């Protein structure tokens, strides 16, 4: 079955520390991949996307993500987090054969001062 898995429901890091949020997908082909961020009470904002080509993609706010086909993963990283990065992060995939976007359950990021 098609699915997107974000194994970490909550992650807490100290301000200035590095961050990695995990995402794995299950799909019979290579999908289009996205990371979105949601601040409380807000809609979702795109951080970055991968369609093809270079497997390391850069996004807004200093985020990057790496697509690993062999692991069906698209992990999000940031070298040094800021207090303003506290939010919920969603991995999403566009299933090309089905024309739909499926989301993971999200990872809530907490930042310690």
């Amino acid at each position, binding site marked *: 079955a098609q699915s997107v898995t974000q194994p970490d429901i909550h992650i807490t890091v100290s301000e200035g520390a590095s961050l990695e949020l995990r995402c794995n997908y299950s799909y019979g082909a290579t999908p289009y991949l996205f990371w979105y961020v949601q601040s409380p009470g807000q809609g979702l904002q795109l951080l970055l996307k991968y369609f093809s080509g270079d497997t390391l993609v850069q996004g807004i706010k200093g985020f990057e993500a790496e697509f690993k086909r062999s692991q069906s993963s698209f992990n999000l990283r940031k070298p040094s987090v800021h207090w303003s990065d506290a939010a919920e992060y969603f991995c999403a995939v566009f299933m*090309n054969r089905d*024309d739909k976007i499926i*989301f993971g359950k999200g990872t809530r990021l907490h930042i310690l001062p």
Partner: protein
Amino acid sequence: NAGVTQTPKFRILKIGQSMTLQCTQDMNHNYMYWYRQDPGMGLKLIYYSVGAGITDKGEVPNGYNVSRSTTEDFPLRLELAAPSQTSVYFCASSYSGDEAFFGQGTRLTVV
């Protein structure tokens, strides 16, 4: 530059009532989506559409209906509201498989 507009922002319904959540986009996107968001569950796809006159079921379509008579509008209909439909509903649009743009959401409570 309006983007994706959802109305209403908040609504309280009684069990058994019906309502329509409105969604309109001004970006000429062909794809439109409805999601519901519940705590700890992420976004679940209710219905989607790849163009005017075409709709398809997503992961959780039961209790909902949609129509897509124009490119701009994609209303979501709840016929017999149930407490299980208490949620935050998001409409989104995209050009084919590209980035989805989201509305600000509709917070619905069924009592």
